[in-house]
């Protein structure tokens, strides 16, 4: 039970990491009214994918995603999963790079982002090398502290809320569905993480729904809380809307000048877990795919983290970060659609084949 709870926490934290990254900004650019429509559509589509994925995985209760692909054949696994590992590395790199930028802008204005980047990479790689058990156990501490901070930030900024800013509440049209940016938005999702733990010990579908409901609630609050404060016109011009929203609050009795630091602290927390899990996933994939003598997950994790660091350090500015985040997010969509479908198809095929044998 404890482990299930921990997996749920990690799942939620990973999505919160994505949610703080670009999610509100993308939502504001997709629609002018009724932002909940975008969030809920996103939620529904992801939910369908989760269900498909989970159905497929449940057919192989003792194996994780990589094992299932290996069953289909080494080359199939390689074709599907190797690009995914690369994509995960790119996602982690961009994620850390963007957050390093945010963190320097909040705390360390005079420090070069590279210093923060090195720190973040070091910690997340260390966590990833320590393995899933460590990540799961750490997630409880992180989840509680981070959620308290987030709730504090949102609750304290309610003084600046003006609910009329979010009007009209009804979405004007469903055109956003055909917008390329909605496609990018779909890429902000870590549902594939579920497949890395055998379904026996993993979350059940109903528990997963509960976790997903929490994530959606968080996404909604993340989108609406800057919106309530600034309104659509202003908010769509911000690079980090949540940061600006947290910055707008001044609490008289408090020791700290700006409560943005709490926002900053929670970003560090989300990120460490998010990227650590991503690096760990890369390590796991590569360890199972490649059968060398010294194929240890920790080596692959370190290698992918080094690669990600070089990649992140090479990105020159914020415009590029944004472009590359969209690109890696878009590629991620490809994987979160194809991998669950492939697993489901394979499970159906296996089922038919075994049923056929039984008939004979």
């Amino acid at each position, binding site marked *: 039970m404890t*482990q299930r709870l921990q997996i749920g926490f990690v799942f939620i934290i990973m999505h919160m990491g994505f949610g703080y990254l670009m999610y509100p900004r993308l939502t504001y650019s997709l629609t002018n009214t009724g932002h909940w429509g975008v969030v809920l559509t996103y939620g529904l589509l992801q939910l369908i994918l989760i269900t498909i994925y989970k159905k497929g995985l449940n057919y192989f209760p003792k194996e994780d995603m990589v094992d299932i692909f290996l069953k289909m054949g080494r080359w199939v696994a390689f074709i599907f999963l190797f690009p995914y590992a690369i994509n995960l590395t790119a996602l982690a790199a961009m994620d850390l790079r963007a957050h390093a930028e945010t*963190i320097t802008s909040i*705390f*360390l204005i005079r*420090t070069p982002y590279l*210093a*923060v980047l090195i*720190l*973040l990479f070091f*910690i997340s790689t*260390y*966590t990833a090398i*320590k*393995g899933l*058990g*460590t990540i799961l*156990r*750490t997630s409880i*501490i*992180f989840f509680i502290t981070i959620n308290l901070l987030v709730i504090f930030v949102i609750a304290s900024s309610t003084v600046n809320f003006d609910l009329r800013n979010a009007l009209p509440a009804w979405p004007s049209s469903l055109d956003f569905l055909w917008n390329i940016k909605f496609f990018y938005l779909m890429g902000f999702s870590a549902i594939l993480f579920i497949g890395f733990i055998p379904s026996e010990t993993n979350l059940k579908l109903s528990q997963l729904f509960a976790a997903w409901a929490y994530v959606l609630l968080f996404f909604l609050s993340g989108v609406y809380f800057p919106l309530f404060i600034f309104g659509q016109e202003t908010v769509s011009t911000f690079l980090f809307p949540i940061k600006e929203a947290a910055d707008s609050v001044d609490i008289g009795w*408090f*020791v*700290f*000048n*700006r409560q943005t*630091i709490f926002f*900053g*602290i929670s970003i*560090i*927390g989300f990120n*460490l877990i998010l990227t650590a899990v991503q690096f760990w996933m890369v390590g796991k994939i590569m360890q199972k795919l490649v059968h060398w003598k010294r194929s240890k997950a920790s080596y692959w994790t370190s290698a992918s983290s080094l690669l990600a660091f070089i990649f992140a350090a090479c990105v020159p500015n914020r415009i590029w970060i944004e472009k590359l985040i969209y690109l890696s997010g878009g590629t991620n969509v490809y994987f979160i659609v194809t991998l669950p479908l492939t697993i489901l198809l394979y499970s159906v095929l296996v089922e038919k084949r075994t049923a056929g044998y039984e008939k004979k």
Partner: protein
Amino acid sequence: MIINPYTNPNVCQKYKEILLRGQIEIINLVQEMKSAFSDQDDFFVQDAQFDGTAFFLIGFNTLIDFAKSNLYVRQMTQRSASVHELFLNLSDQLDKDAAQLKKAVLDGKLVLISESGNNAIVEPVPQSLRRSVEEPRNESPIQGPLDAFGEDIELNIGLIRKRLGTERLCLCSYQVGELAKQRISMLYIRGKAQTALIEKVDQRLKQIESDIETIDDLNKHLGKRILSPVSHLFATEVPVQAIHSLKKNRIVLFLENQPFALVFPHLISDMLHTANDRNLPIGLSLMIRALRGLGVFATLVLPALYVALTSVNPEILKTDLALFIADSREGIPLTPVLETLIMTILVDLITEAIVRLPKSVGPTVTMVGGVVLGTAMVEAKLVSNLLVIVITFMLIASSAVVGVQNALYIRSLKYPVFVLASVYGIVGLIVGLALISIYLASLTSCDIPYMTFRMKGKEGIK
């Protein structure tokens, strides 16, 4: 029965007589014992006669209270008809081989060898080499029983048996070591502790080949942790605590000559809970535990926070507070990092110095070190007033933790956080705390994570 007065074994009269009579077999045995212990002056071979047969009493007079043991043997002779019957009356360990006899002598037993070739290992009246049950020295329980473990392993196990009268309390003993066999005992409650865990510990204890002198020697054999400040074992002096751990599905180890029960596995809750807390109403015990948690947090955070706020991130404070801090540091030549580092190390030094000082000197050092030096440093404008407050707070906070070793490791972990904070400010502080929680979460002993709050019983998976 006639017993010759105590003589040096080398000039033992009876021995010479027997030698003359040519009873080679017996002589061989006694001779072998003598040559084995020829370098020990406290070794004695005492001859005696009963029912016309000679026999020898052999042992160490530093381990055996000879006068009383002798009296005991003498009293037993009155109830026996022959030497053989005497031996039967005295002991049930009869006719052992030479190696066993030697070991018995080393273990402080009295060995009897008779002329007719019989021998017996007798439990003598021992020299009292152990202190009796005393109050705990390292822990001072409030509202709880005041007895503590001693150096004697039997006494310690007895203290537990006395309180936990159940047949489910199991005891396994091990003799390990290269030079001298050291006794280790493992206690657990059958049906509570996980079988897999017991088996693993059992296997590891059996594999020990080197000498186990200290708790850390034992710790190394229970799992690899290079340079880790966190041990696999939690040492406690108080029987109540050990029993509480046993009931909470854990294993208790006893090492001979160590006045501690070593609870395995060591969990993070040991830092915050003691068994005696539960003598208080639940609200109060929760408050005490929360204070201990706060103590851990404050120890890790305070010096780092001071450095972060003064040297890297002064702007995140409210203006008047930031000005106050800047004001208190006015005219101080040292940088905040150096200032804090000097003070933390100084405080740690004082704490370490006081520990081993005689009680008569301790207060002087405390006064000179703490009061005089602190005041002088502030008045000389070497460190700021605020820092002195921060450091004092930290020192007090670090002492709130349960267990000396836990307090030490928390104190040692503040340095990495401090270093990170001095480079990255608040970010460093947060990352440092995250790093520590990740590190602690990564620790496991026999697959049981250190961060577990409740050990699952036999039915549990992990």
